[in-house]
């Protein structure tokens, strides 16, 4: 049976999640001028935010399981499983970012009549930038939580979605600026 405690826990989790999301929204509002420069960018944004959360969430879950059963040591050097995970995250983000960029480019062309091939380059650059920031952050936080006796599975889910949203938006803006220079 649900109790007052359940109500408090669900409410607290939701309010924290909303606060993190509002910060990401604030960044979106802050960089509106840059976002407006690229036609069709609003087709790319939701998929890109989803991608970042999914890749970091799975990475953290895999590392957490490995640490928990003792098959993975919380260290950065000479760690075959960790290196494999980092390589996989890099490959996945590059491939899926390009696919997302292509989908956004084709959809904005066919459905909205906006010709914006830059979306493919922006998707790729944003994917690489966000990966360089988010993957080490996820690994470091997972190891740090584990070393302090916490179960990363309980904390990393909301953590990666919130940090992922913020880093993705900053990466998209940086990618738009870089693509403008290319």
């Amino acid at each position, binding site marked *: 049976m649900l109790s007052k405690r*359940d109500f408090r826990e669900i409410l607290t989790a939701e*309010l924290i*999640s909303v606060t*993190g999301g*509002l910060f990401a929204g604030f960044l979106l509002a802050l960089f509106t001028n840059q976002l407006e420069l690229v036609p069709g960018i609003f*087709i790319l944004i939701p998929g890109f935010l989803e991608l970042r959360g999914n890749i970091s969430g799975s990475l953290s879950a895999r590392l957490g399981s490995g640490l928990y*059963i003792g*098959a993975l040591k919380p260290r950065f050097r000479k760690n075959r499983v960790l290196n494999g995970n980092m390589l996989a995250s890099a490959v*996945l983000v590059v491939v899926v970012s390009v696919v997302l960029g292509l989908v956004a480019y084709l959809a*904005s062309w066919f459905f909205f009549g906006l010709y914006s091939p830059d979306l493919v380059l922006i998707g790729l650059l944003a994917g690489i930038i966000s990966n360089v920031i988010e993957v080490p952050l996820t690994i470091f936080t997972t190891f740090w939580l584990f070393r302090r006796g916490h179960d990363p599975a309980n904390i990393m889910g909301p953590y990666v979605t919130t940090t992922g949203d913020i880093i993705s938006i900053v990466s998209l803006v940086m990618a738009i600026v870089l693509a403008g220079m290319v």
Partner: protein
Amino acid sequence: MTEKEGRKERRIPQHVISKIRRHPRKKFHAHLHGLRKQYGLSKMTFFYMKEYGPRSHVASNIVKESIKILILASVLSSVGGFGLQEIQRHIIAIVPLLVLLPALADMIGDFGTIIASKFTTALFLGHIKLDKWWRSRNLQVLFHVVMAVAVIAAVYNGVLAYGIAYIKGFAFSAETFIKVMEISLFSTLMLVGLIFAISVVAGIRIYRRGEDPNNFLIPITTSIADLGSLLIFSGMVLLFFG
């Protein structure tokens, strides 16, 4: 028997190791079950060693298993982006809507996971009767709790989004504020209600078939949350500001 002899008895014979090594990674060899029992390995450890052990290529295993679902999930979210592109003019002009959007998507996704897992646990514990589930007190309480949290979170989201936009220089207007609050409230309640209905109806059907509803409900509710939050939000913006 000495300790050393005891350890020798537990050593896996070489011909067994060779057989296991020749066996394809994805197939479960008959010997493996016995080895797992003999060496007291948990299923999780065994799975992890099979998947990421010394003879497997970690990165390629992860990429092969993840790439399809990642592309599918991300492209589905991009479909929700079509709605956003349609209302781009509005969400850039009315800043609170832009601030509100990522928080709304996150919140609905979290509600999907909470409803699906709470409902499934109640089913497993026998707190919900399968024949007259709509009369279940537990289900009614879950609905009331979720809806109460949804109202508070939607109001919090709307007020803070407008406050942030105001700090950023967006002028205050009572009419726009009420519209933003209505969009936040109605979008949240519609989506939470939809996710609740799908979780209950689909969860009971799957449970009756003897399967674990968690395996189906979590992915389906989060997908509906991702796509639905963008589409319903876009529809609401067109309705109130179009």
